[in-house]
């Protein structure tokens, strides 16, 4: 398909701008500062619309079909939330204007609801995504030890953790120490006791972990860490499994980030915008980013805290995303949140039990919201990539693949609570069919997909000679 630049014709335009209603004045910008050429496409409105509608047809979202992308919680994004986020009072509100009590109220109430859901004492909505929340949380950890006059340098992350955990640690000036998982896919308590020392600032845990398994020794882990004077950070990417069932604060978690674009149904937008609020226990509240929202004498206000780590984003965070999360939580309510977790976990266990005899399930235990299969023992050189690409031909978005790294050819499957039994059964049938194809018609898998505008793309070529922009020459 052509690029928009290739559809450009001199003199066409896709918008009509208002006429100038003040006198024109020449020479305002000196020649040195004046732009001479500007290369942008020239297209009319019809061409423009057809181009981007055609592109949208070459994309596949949750609204198009099943999307069991593990650890990403691709649940349905309620349409009402989109309408609400577009209300004039929200989108037209300037971040530096007075009379924004509605925005502040919504943010204040959302913070409080997130506190109640997690058991934490205070939240900030400023981080723009999960990894941004991690960075913010690590900054809080750094500020906490700075204040105590301790120069702790190490962050422990399990070998099953999201890549963002060690990357965020480095960005915040910490050193990462990897902790090997035990044969149950969980934290190895003996190993933890062995490596812990007074230089350890914190451990970053994903609960349930990326295998979908709940750390059965969580209370011992947090106890060991606290005894060492260290903090416990929870990557809340998988919070969908725990809503209304248990609270991270009760486990001994000191800091958590949530992904509103996962657990609280705000859409992922093709990779963003997300929102990664950070919650902390009372002793860390003073370090949260500025400004904070307070409610006093019937009015919401912004205040700055002198002990704060400072700002991590301009203004107050991805407000438009938080509107959708607020509206989601109010829609489903207290009972609904618990039901979300129950159904997410039931759906995952149902798939796991139905698929564990068809594919290898390396960690065979009760799972929470997701589980991980392996490509071990697949015949005819069939790999996880082949399975994933063949799923596309059956109208299913592939699962997360080759992650976590501790499973050979990992296939991480997260169905979420918004899928019906019929959809799950269809997936089970397709996965069975693909397993049979691996046996009988492996070339179908090696060459899939067949149903898309393009076949399997050459990633090596893309990286060897990077072509990252169009050039008309």
């Amino acid at each position, binding site marked *: 398909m052509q690029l928009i630049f290739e559809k450009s014709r001199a003199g066409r335009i896709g918008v009509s701008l208002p006429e100038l209603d003040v006198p024109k004045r020449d020479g305002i910008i000196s020649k040195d500062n004046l732009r001479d050429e500007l290369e942008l496409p020239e297209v009319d409105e019809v061409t423009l619309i057809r181009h981007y509608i055609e592109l949208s047809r070459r994309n596949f979202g*949750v609204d198009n079909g099943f999307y069991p992308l593990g650890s990403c919680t691709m649940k349905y994004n309620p349409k*009402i939330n989109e309408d609400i986020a577009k209300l004039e009072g929200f989108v037209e509100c300037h971040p530096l204007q007075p009379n924004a009590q509605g925005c502040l109220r919504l943010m204040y109430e959302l913070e409080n609801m997130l506190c109640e859901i997690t058991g934490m004492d205070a939240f900030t909505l400023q981080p723009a995504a999960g*990894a941004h929340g991690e960075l913010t949380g690590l900054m809080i950890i750094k500020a906490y030890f700075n204040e105590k006059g301790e120069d702790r340098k190490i962050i422990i992350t399990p070998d099953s953790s999201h890549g963002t955990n060690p990357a965020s*640690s480095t960005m915040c000036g910490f050193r990462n120490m990897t902790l090997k998982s035990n044969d149950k896919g969980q934290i190895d308590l003996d190993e933890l006791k062995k490596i812990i020392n007074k230089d350890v600032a914190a451990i970053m845990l994903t609960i349930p972990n990326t295998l979908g398994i709940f750390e059965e020794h969580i209370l011992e882990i947090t106890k060991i860490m606290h005894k060492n004077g260290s903090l416990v950070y929870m990557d809340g990417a998988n919070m969908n499994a725990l809503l209304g069932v248990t609270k991270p604060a009760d486990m001994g978690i000191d800091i958590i980030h949530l992904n509103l674009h996962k657990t609280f149904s705000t859409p992922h937008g093709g990779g963003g915008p*997300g929102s990664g609020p950070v919650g902390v226990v009372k002793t860390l509240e003073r370090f949260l980013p500025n400004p904070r929202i307070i409610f006093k004498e019937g009015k919401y206000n912004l205040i700055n805290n002198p002990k704060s780590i*400072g700002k991590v*984003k301009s203004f107050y965070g991805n407000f438009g995303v938080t509107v959708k999360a607020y509206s989601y939580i109010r829609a489903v309510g207290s009972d609904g949140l618990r039901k979300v977790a129950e159904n997410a976990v039931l759906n995952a266990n149902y798939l796991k039990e139905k698929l564990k005899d068809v594919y290898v399930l390396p960690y065979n235990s009760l799972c929470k919201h997701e589980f991980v299969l392996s490509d071990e023992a697949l015949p005819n050189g069939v790999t996880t990539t082949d399975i994933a690409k063949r799923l596309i031909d059956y109208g299913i978005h592939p699962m997360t693949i080759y992650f976590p790294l501790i499973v050979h050819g990992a296939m991480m499957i997260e169905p979420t609570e918004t899928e019906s039994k019929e959809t799950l059964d269809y997936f089970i049938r397709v996965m069975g069919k693909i397993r049979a194809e691996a046996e009988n018609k492996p070339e179908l898998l090696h060459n899939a997909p067949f149903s898309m505008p393009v076949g399997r793309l050459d990633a090596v070529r893309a990286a060897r000679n990077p072509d990252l922009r169009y050039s008309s020459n």
Partner: protein
Amino acid sequence: MDFIPNTNKDREAMLKEIGLKSISELFRDIPDRIILKDKLKIPASMSEVGLFELLKGISKMNKVDFSYFIGAGAYKHFIPSVVKHIVARSEFYTTYTPYQPEMSQGILQAIYEYQTMICNLFGMDVSNASLYDGATALAESCIMASNITKRNEILVSRAIHPDYRQVVKTYCWAHNLKFVEVDYSDGVTSIDDLKLKINKRTATLLLQQPNFFGCVENLRGISDILHRNGSLLNVCVIEPTSLGILKPPGEHSDIVVGEGQSLGNPVSFGGPYLGIMATKHRYLRQLPGRLVGKTTDGNGNIGYILTLQAREQHIRRERASSNICSNEALCALAATVYLSALGKNGLRKLAELCLYKAHYLADRLEEIGCSIVFEQEFYNEFLVKVKDAKTVSKKLLDSGILGGLDIGVYYPELNNCLLFCVTELNTKEEMDRLVEIIRKCN
């Protein structure tokens, strides 16, 4: 509403098939001590009707029918309907990061187009697929500059947006970089102060173009000083419609970052916005964030794919160029459609509208005895000295006019100075009304 299709009957059937008796068995791996005994103290669920009324009510607690003359990092431009309709396509907005390229050619091609437009607009070689916002992009650019130069001092112009400087300061502290401010003089970054503070540890200087006061900085002169010292120049454009008329910063800088909100995204109380970042070919591998590249399939068909992922956190973990994962793809899509709709002539015309209107207002305010604080070239924001900023602001607000922004809180030395912003949405009639009010109270 709970958006859960399965009924109790479905659930019972599923439990039975996997050999479980009750839902609570699904949670038996969680220690009993921490299983919640009470319900969450969150209000009960609501109907769609009730929910919409509630949120409409909350949205109406905000007053948004002002005549806006305030920018300072969030700009009110007209958003063409085509932009809104394209970003509302759920084939775009309900997808995740395009990890499966064959199924995601739509967003991948759109991002490739976006990267091209950003390069053209800013005069740079390579652009990433977006970062969180302008301020975090500027902060990421410090880490990138430090990695490139192997130096750890960041010079930051005081004429940069105060919020941006605060974000940079936080990131620098976390990443163990030294944050040093360079003063301004007559509204632009002071060359004298720069010469005083630059040294062999200087990784880069951060500049805003046009700067927070609206003034156009002399990039050429400053870039010479830095490059002679082996340092980089990172330039931040927070109001990118200015690039319809102003020279692109790429020619004289090494890394450019920007805030793309102006390009088809609403002000939305501060987010979601669009972090732009572009650089020279030679720094490509130090660039944080996603990149989309062109390639082919087995039959020679052209396609697009996430590439150079070996820089990224999911591959390199603690040695990644950044921790970024989610970005602002949908806002980047909005910017792509916006720039396509305006095209080269439209963006030029839009920039002229903002420029001429802003100068009309500045001239009129001067006529009534206000002084324009800095005698520099400006685009659509400028600083005006009044006798009493609080009184003027209040009088304007009482008449439904918001702005300019009283910047005394950020710059104590610029007490009683208002930062005005004018876009194509401000009419002559509105501006005349504003001038009349100030004439009466100043």
